């Protein structure tokens, strides 16, 4: 049977609504009787709250509620996906700039804003820690109250956790060269186009929350726990987010909205401004020391990685980011001995969280750059040294984990070919190549329900959040393939915890694999029912009927499933219901609690040139190749890869949050925090995929969509190094930073300069 839907690139489900403005985002939803919320903050990161005077605010016409920490249950409830460390409103001391001390609900947004400014917060500014060095200083103030970390040996420090992974004997390794350096990765923000938005409404049947959240079921659990309601009385409605990238995985202001709605007895809504979104979520910055031993042929003998990640004051999911991001820090290579020490360090900065790549881009920047420095010292080129060390299919390159699950050499060779690695390089140009892996989910649980309706159309219930990655389209394609129903007769329902069965989360590029498999299982359940139906309708033994890919095979021919359905349902009509589930069980002995379901492997190759007077980089060619197992929708796959690559250009070339001494973001907002635009794209972007149908997902698919972000920075830096001779170990590679390195070289007698 040929594939009709899977492997094709049909028009995106929901795409028309998105581009024409018809899609309802949370901010577009208005409830009768709603109140608008504004947050009350102080103008620094860390302040001791002395008193909160709400009297002036309460006199503003239209103000219905001024909520302070005193109005919450005591002690003030705390929440978080890993630790219950974040208070619903600041208690005693603010920990980051933008953390609300109080909140106002009013009949209009203007009244709420006006009143929020009139809430008088008497406070004493305290010195914040906002750098890794500052947080580790023995004299530094403790970001978290040690009482919150009872039983934690590190509680009297700003180190939230330390993750260690070790194998082989580093000391026994013999190397011809040891390369050691420190690399820095900046703080960057997700910059989803849709702002974070939250609505909470009390009702007779509990509480309803609307949120631009990636993980509605996780949020449901958090809210139910905080307000003391059963899951069945907390309904989370999560319209498709307008971009999320990890920044919308976990609860932010939903708990505050829940308590305000319950107190006000009316719906409350909060739509963050872009500036407030900047203050709500960011990627963990990092400083990473890498020490690599190499033999003269380029083979790696050992590697040490010390990665310090700077978190905000509350962990959110960042401790997991540090642990899971650093564990595969050696990349897709065989490294016989390694020691990885990664620390999650607290600070008075924007709460950090998951962000596309989940901690891997930081380490990959350091390790791949370090490998290039070694290659250069040994006279090897970047492609040679990578192929020398790259794991082969089935090789257990990462101890305790899934063996190499692809023919990765194919991916690397294709990227080299696309960039023209072996062709002559124009004067003043440079090339770089980098590899990266990201672990797929280590545990997972997805349920799906597929309803085959009387007219042969199909409803797919799948709790994945389609935040732009195109999951609705993929799921419709799978159902189309399995049920033999055209796409325009299939609807995918998601985003409502009262309607759609449980899905653990939308992250780690899991949905095509886990939810995809759950949908296939649901369809296969329908296949079983249809087989029995066909046997009954056509007077056959069920053994004589085989159902597969939309068709029932009978002894004397094939019948489309739609015909079987209608014959079977008869005049009463109705429907068939199939349920499916995909689980990936936890493995308690594994350092991450579970092996990777698959690896996302990407190879990126860059050709660049640099204006040596200004330091401006022009990317001439950007080649991206990923091993995706099978591209269920080739166009979407390439869009995801190209989108990830362009996003990666942000932290590579221009994006970084700059803090002042009061812990405030100096480049707060779109004017001074620059992200790449269409005009900043490489002159040529070439992408391709490797498909060997060797993934654990439907039809051999692996998850994808983060991999192409992992390699951008090291590949660009390597190209800049070759073009200019300067090595830069801090991101982003801004024109100013490159110019400073070039300028230093002009002034220095040595021909090569490191910045």
């Amino acid at each position, binding site marked *: 049977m040929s594939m009709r839907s899977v492997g094709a690139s049909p028009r995106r489900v929901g795409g028309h609504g998105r581009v024409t403005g018809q899609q309802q985002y949370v901010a577009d939803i208005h409830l009768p009787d709603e109140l608008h919320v504004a947050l009350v903050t102080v103008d620094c990161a860390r302040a001791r709250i002395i008193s909160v005077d709400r009297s002036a605010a309460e006199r503003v016409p239209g103000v219905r509620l001024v909520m302070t920490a005193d109005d919450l249950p005591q002690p003030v409830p705390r929440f978080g996906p890993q630790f219950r460390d974040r208070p619903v409103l600041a208690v005693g001391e603010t920990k980051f700039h933008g953390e609300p001390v109080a909140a106002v609900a009013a009949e209009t947004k203007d009244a709420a804003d006006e009143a929020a400014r009139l809430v008088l917060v008497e406070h004493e500014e305290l010195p914040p820690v906002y750098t890794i060095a500052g947080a580790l200083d023995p004299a530094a103030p403790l970001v978290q109250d040690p009482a919150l970390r009872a039983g934690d040996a590190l509680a009297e420090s700003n180190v939230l956790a330390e993750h260690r992974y070790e194998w082989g004997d580093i000391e026994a390794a013999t190397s011809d060269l040891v390369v050691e350096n420190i690399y820095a990765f900046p703080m960057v923000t997700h910059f989803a186009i849709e702002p974070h938005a939250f609505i909470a409404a009390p009702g007779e049947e509990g509480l309803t929350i609307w949120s631009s959240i990636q993980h509605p079921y996780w949020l449901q659990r958090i809210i139910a726990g905080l307000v003391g309601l059963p899951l069945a009385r907390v309904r989370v409605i999560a319209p498709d987010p307008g971009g999320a990238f990890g920044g919308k995985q976990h609860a932010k202001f939903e708990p505050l909205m829940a308590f305000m709605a319950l107190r006000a007895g009316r719906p409350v809504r909060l739509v963050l401004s872009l500036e407030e979104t900047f203050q709500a979520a960011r990627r963990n910055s990092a400083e990473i020391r890498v020490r690599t031993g190499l033999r003269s042929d380029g083979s790696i003998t050992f590697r040490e990685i010390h990665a310090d990640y700077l978190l905000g004051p509350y962990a959110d999911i960042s401790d997991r980011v540090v642990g899971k991001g650093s564990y595969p820090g050696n990349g897709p290579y065989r490294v016989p001995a390694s020691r990885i020490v990664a620390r999650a360090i607290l600070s008075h900065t924007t709460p950090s969280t998951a962000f596309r790549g989940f901690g891997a881009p930081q380490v990959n920047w350091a390790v791949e750059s370090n490998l290039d420095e070694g290659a250069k010292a040994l006279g090897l080129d970047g492609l040679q040294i990578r192929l020398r060390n790259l794991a082969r299919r089935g090789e257990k390159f990462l101890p305790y984990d899934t063996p190499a699950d692809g023919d990765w050499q194919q991916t690397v060779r294709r990227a080299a070919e696309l960039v023209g690695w072996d062709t002559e390089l124009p004067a003043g140009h440079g090339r770089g190549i980098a590899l990266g892996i990201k672990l797929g989910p280590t545990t997972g649980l997805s349920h799906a329900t597929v309803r085959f309706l009387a007219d042969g159309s199909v409803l797919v219930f799948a709790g994945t959040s389609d935040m732009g990655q195109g999951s609705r389209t993929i799921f419709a394609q799978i159902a189309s393939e399995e049920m033999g129903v055209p796409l325009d007769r299939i609807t995918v329902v998601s985003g409502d915890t009262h309607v759609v069965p449980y899905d653990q989360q939308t992250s780690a590029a899991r949905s095509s694999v886990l939810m995809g498999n759950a949908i296939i299982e649901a369809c296969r359940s329908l296949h079983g029912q249809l087989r029995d139906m066909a046997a009954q309708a056509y007077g056959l033994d069920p053994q004589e009927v085989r159902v597969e890919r939309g068709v029932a095979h009978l002894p004397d021919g094939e019948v489309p499933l739609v015909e079987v359905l209608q014959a079977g349902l008869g005049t009463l009509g109705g429907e068939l219901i199939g349920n499916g589930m995909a689980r990936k069980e936890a493995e308690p002995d594994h350092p991450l609690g579970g092996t990777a379901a698959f690896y996302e492997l990407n190879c990126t190759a860059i050709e660049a040139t640099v204006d040596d007077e200004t330091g401006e980089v022009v990317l001439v060619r950007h080649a991206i190749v990923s091993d995706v197992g099978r591209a269920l929708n080739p166009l979407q796959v390439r869009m995801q890869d190209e989108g990830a690559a362009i996003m990666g250009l942000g932290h590579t070339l221009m994006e970084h949050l700059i803090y002042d001494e009061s812990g405030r973001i100096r480049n707060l907002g779109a004017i001074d925090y620059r992200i790449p*635009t269409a*005009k900043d794209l490489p002159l040529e972007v070439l992408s391709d995929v490797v498909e060997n149908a060797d993934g654990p997902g439907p039809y051999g698919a692996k998850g994808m969509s983060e991999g192409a972000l992992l390699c951008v920075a090291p590949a660009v830096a390597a190209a800049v190094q070759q073009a200019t001779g300067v090595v830069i170990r801090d991101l982003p590679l801004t024109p100013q930073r490159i110019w400073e390195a070039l300028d230093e070289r002009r002034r220095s007698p040595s021909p090569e300069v490191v910045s």
Partner: protein
Amino acid sequence: MRSFDYQRPATLTDAVALLERHGPEAQILAGGTDLIIGLRDRTIQPSVVADLKQVPELRPAIDEQDGWLSISAGTTMTQISAHPAIRRHFMALVEGADVVGSVQIRNRATLAGNICNASPAADTAPPLLVFGARVLVEGPAGERRIPIDEFFVRSRETTLLRGELVKSIELPVPREPVGAAYLRLTRRRGTDLASITLCCGVEPSGSTRLAYGSVGPKPVLFTDKSGVLADPATAEDAKLAILEEMLSAASPSPRSVRASPQYRRAMLRVLARRGLRAAVERLRGAA
């Protein structure tokens, strides 16, 4: 956004009277591309917004008369960029207008608004300075003309008096071709506020005008009449010495998140050399 009165005067006289009555409490709405952002962010909190789009004299118009090309206050960047006479005589102004904001911004933003906002980084200011523009102003005391190099004071401040508004911007149509080029330094290629703006103009006589902005409180203009800069036979060192003198007014802020003062000073030199080279080449091409 704080609430305000919205007024839409129908005549120039009414507009001037309105502005005079409210002084700094009034804000003019033309394209609105700076105003609306300021209102939303509460960095501008007027009690009156005066929408001047209905005033006949201010409606978009570009006319040539008595050797002067006049651009009315309502004329947008897009209209300027598309105008044949401006493209013929003042291409560097087109280059400046073409990089203000994005396409949507340029469809609304006016030249008059760009100079009245008086951002040190205004893209149209250096070309206007190089081309010797003057600003035609209407006010309670009647009409007057302000040379553009006397118009800017500092960010958001001009020499306009209470009740005055810009009617048009006038550019002297050169009798002989002038070679001029506008350059800017930005952090990315897409829409950005410039870290440096620079325009260089070279006349057939060799007289060279250099205007630059975003490196001090206001855009500034310098003229070198020696002819050395435009002379291809002059040694590079001699040119650099003159350029260095012309660039000495730069005082980039150490507090900027956009670029360090050292980088800005160095890039100002690079842009000045490139601007001069481009202007000389264009003059030669026009001859």
